[in-house]
């Protein structure tokens, strides 16, 4: 039994130990030696990644009384999470060091959040899932408020906390109804029970709606997106970067686990809900983003529209849809990290970047960073030859294959609206004269620049040769069931 747990959940155990010891070590190290904490965290990620990758992709391994599962989905999403978090830490190190926030608490909270993400991804039982959600959410609320001297941050954390708590309540309510109908908390048993018993359709549909609303809240999909822009704007940039990227892996996993693996008999019912949310998110996200003047708010609305695209793929209820969404989420995180990485890079050199107009004249000051900006935003807009194009491409392919022609056309039209505001960013960086006199860049953070460059090159290389990542996503989604 113990050996079983050790093989299946070893990465989580390592993350937990590391999260606690980092907190402890942080007390002794204070701020002087944050670099060693940074190193420990990165090492943890590396070790966790190593042990995760040792798990077989083809089989479904269960542990903790079958409440915890390791399958292809968890393998794919966990490895991406480690990689993403590692990048987040590299990008945010200098910025946090300057703001005096790089301490044991930060690393510990980030690791606990990762643990929550891992739990959600690997859950095979409603309680495991809920525990993961709470662990992730509580860590995120605290992370948003970690810069406690800033009023904005506290306000954002409060908003996030209240709305998040409501969402958790919805989920829990849905879970309890499911338990009432089926008498089980195991995902596979619930699915079987719904298949055979004639459950009260009223309670079942309420359960379904509550669960879907909870998922949509955590995803930040319209019409449950209200917290996204405020939290993005209020948190300090590294935290925004974290919130905007890795937890989305957990949201995708939560959706697949709950809707595809648990409520799979109700596919006809949730399909339409997801479709409506997908289209609303795409249109609302893209149209509202046009009016934004702050970069982080703009990226928040852009996130909402990207979530809409993912939901469109997931709404098909087909394997191709999942594989397209899994491909999309990987590319989305890579692009988001690059965009926030760029903002951090610029913030370190030109002072905090807040408004979009702060980017003006970038092409003259720093042509290389301007070029990276060009690629990043073209990728977010989905213009080939960047990876963003294939992400949208595979979603639209899955939608059309399912026979949804008009949703595909709406998706494409909303992508067109998106292109407008991404182009406006490029326009400001390339064509506008600098508004405020920029100080000559103080120190060139070569390590940060190098990471960003590698990240952007990855956007192009993957854009030219997306085959491998697509194959992996397809294999993963084919092996889930």
């Amino acid at each position, binding site marked *: 039994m113990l050996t079983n747990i050790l093989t299946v959940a070893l990465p989580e155990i390592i993350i937990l130990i590391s999260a606690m010891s980092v907190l402890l070590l942080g007390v002794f190290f204070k701020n002087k030696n944050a670099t060693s904490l940074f190193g420990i965290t990165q090492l943890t990620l590396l070790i966790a990644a190593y042990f995760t990758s040792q798990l077989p992709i083809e089989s479904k391994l269960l542990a903790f009384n079958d409440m915890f599962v390791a399958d292809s989905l968890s393998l794919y999403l966990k490895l991406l999470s480690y990689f993403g978090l590692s990048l987040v830490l590299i990008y945010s190190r200098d910025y946090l060091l300057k703001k005096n926030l790089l301490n044991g608490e930060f690393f510990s909270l980030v690791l606990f959040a990762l643990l929550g993400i891992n739990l959600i991804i690997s859950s095979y039982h409603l309680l495991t899932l809920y525990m993961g959600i709470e662990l992730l959410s509580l860590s995120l609320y605290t992370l948003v408020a970690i810069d406690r001297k800033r009023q904005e941050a506290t306000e954002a954390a409060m908003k996030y906390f209240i709305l998040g708590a409501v969402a958790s309540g919805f989920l829990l309510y849905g879970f309890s109804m499911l338990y009432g109908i089926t008498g089980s908390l195991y995902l596979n048993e619930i699915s079987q029970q719904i298949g055979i018993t004639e459950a009260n359709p009223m309670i079942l549909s309420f359960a379904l709606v509550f669960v879907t609303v909870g998922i949509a809240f955590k995803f930040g999909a319209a019409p449950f997106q209200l917290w996204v822009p405020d939290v993005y704007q209020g948190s300090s940039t590294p935290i925004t970067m974290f919130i905007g990227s890795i937890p989305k892996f957990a949201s995708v996993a939560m959706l697949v686990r709950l809707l595809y693996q648990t409520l799979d008999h109700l596919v006809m019912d949730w399909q339409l809900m997801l479709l409506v949310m997908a289209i609303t998110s795409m249109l609302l996200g893209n149209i509202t983003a046009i009016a934004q003047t702050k970069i982080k708010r703009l990226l928040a609305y852009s996130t909402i529209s990207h979530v809409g695209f993912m939901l469109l793929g997931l709404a098909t209820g087909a394997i191709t849809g999942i594989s397209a969404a899994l491909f999309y989420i990987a590319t989305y995180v890579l692009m988001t990290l690059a965009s926030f990485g760029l903002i951090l890079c610029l913030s370190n050199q030109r002072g905090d970047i807040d408004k979009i107009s702060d980017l003006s004249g970038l092409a003259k000051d720093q042509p290389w960073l301007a070029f990276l900006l060009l690629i990043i935003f073209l990728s977010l807009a989905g213009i080939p030859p960047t990876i963003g194009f294939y992400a949208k491409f595979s979603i639209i392919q899955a939608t059309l294959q399912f026979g949804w*022609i008009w949703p595909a056309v709406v998706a*494409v039209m909303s992508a067109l609206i998106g292109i407008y505001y991404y182009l406006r960013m490029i326009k400001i960086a390339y064509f506008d004269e600098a508004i405020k006199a920029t100080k000559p860049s103080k120190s060139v953070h070569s390590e940060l620049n190098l990471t960003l460059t590698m990240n952007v090159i990855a956007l192009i290389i993957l854009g030219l040769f997306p085959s491998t990542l697509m194959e992996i996503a397809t294999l993963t989604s084919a092996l889930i069931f």
Partner: protein
Amino acid sequence: MMMNFILSIAIWTPISLGILLLILQKNLSEKIIYKLGNIFGLIAFLITIPLYIFFDTTYSGFQFQEIAPWISHFSIQYHLGLDGISLPLVMLTSLITWLVIFISSNSISRSLGSYIASFLILSGLMIGVFLALDAILYYVFWEAMLIPMFLLIGVWGGPNRVYATIKFFLYTVLGSLLMLVAFIYLFNQTGSFSIIDFYSKQLSLNAQVLLFVAFFMAFAVKIPMWPVHTWLPDAHVEAPTGGSVILAAIMLKLGAYSFIRFAMPIAPDGLLLLKPYLIAISLIAIVYIALVAIVQTDMKKLIAYSSISHMGFVTLGLFMLNPLGFEGGYVQMISHGFISAALFFSIGVLYDRMHTREIKDYGGIINSMPVFGSFFVLFAMANSGLPGTSGFVGEFLVILGAMQENFWIAFLAALTLIFGATYSLWLVKRIIFGVVKNKKIAGLVDLNAKEFFVMSTLAGLTLIIGIYPALITDITNQSSIVMLELIQQSKI
């Protein structure tokens, strides 16, 4: 060995030379950058010559084909091929790009290296569009092409450049996204993105009409056809000379080429159903836009509207679906490539000296610039379709084709010979002849050696094709026969 990759070389040489120039430009002086860029442009042109030499005009299929798996998950291939319809356009692209680079040092003062590099990259991407036989490969080239053009207009353009370049980008993307949906629909039907597989796929009439409309949105914007033409005058007016030249000479042809390559053979029954409307739209472009051109006060805008009107001739010829019209439309495409390029170069020559494009600021140029004046008169004549120039051949064939279809179509189309002459000759009268308007004009210097070279090359080509159009029709003949057969077959 080299022959196997001759098409890839034609695409990737200019792109890699462009990137090389971008990297090198930091440490070089303007003069060396110009020389280097010029050599690169010449190389990019010279490597397309073997395509012409080794092209087999008796064979109607695709030549020099290259196939390699690219994105196996969606069975997307790196598939290139050349036929009689793409060859003249490839040659046109590489030649005009070189000429644009050759004359660039006259009008561009800042970041010349990036300017030349953009054109080199753009040229490779456009050649890629003409050679791709896989829909997604084609789409990637088609979209990627927008990026250098977006920057060319936005960075080196006129005062209202940002508005113009964003409008250009959004209009084009609007159409091409629908085209992407059409491609994916076809993929779901055939299981492949190969254009050749698309040709043989049977489709219902309803599907064909929708597909044709989706393609139409993409290509009509690019050509541009009335009523989606409004981006073109803006883009032309704001673009630097080189940008205008490439836009008029090549980019507009991409739309017409894509109609021949995709929309017409893939959805022939849809085309047949929509044919009356398409002909009507083409005629509106020919007549109405020509009238609009007459009243313009900005000469670049005038030539831009004249371009739209001439592209109306191209689409009219293509959509008539008879051999004369098809051939005529195609020759008109190539001929317009030379003539519009020459006219935009001419305006560039004037603008570099006078820094104004208003027609009323000019007059009596012939007194100070006799050589330029003669060239300009020749190109204006060619633009209005004077026999002996290439402009005549295309228009004449299209009108003959229209006559086979219906007398009134031919009549309306032939009106353009009058309108075209009106705006071209009136422009000549106001700019070249008449009294010398002001001291600045009296002091103008005639063409320098570089300008003379560019002008005489284009003049020579205009005349050669005008006198001996078989130079083009021999190449296109076999392919266009096959293409027309494909278009005339029902696919229901």
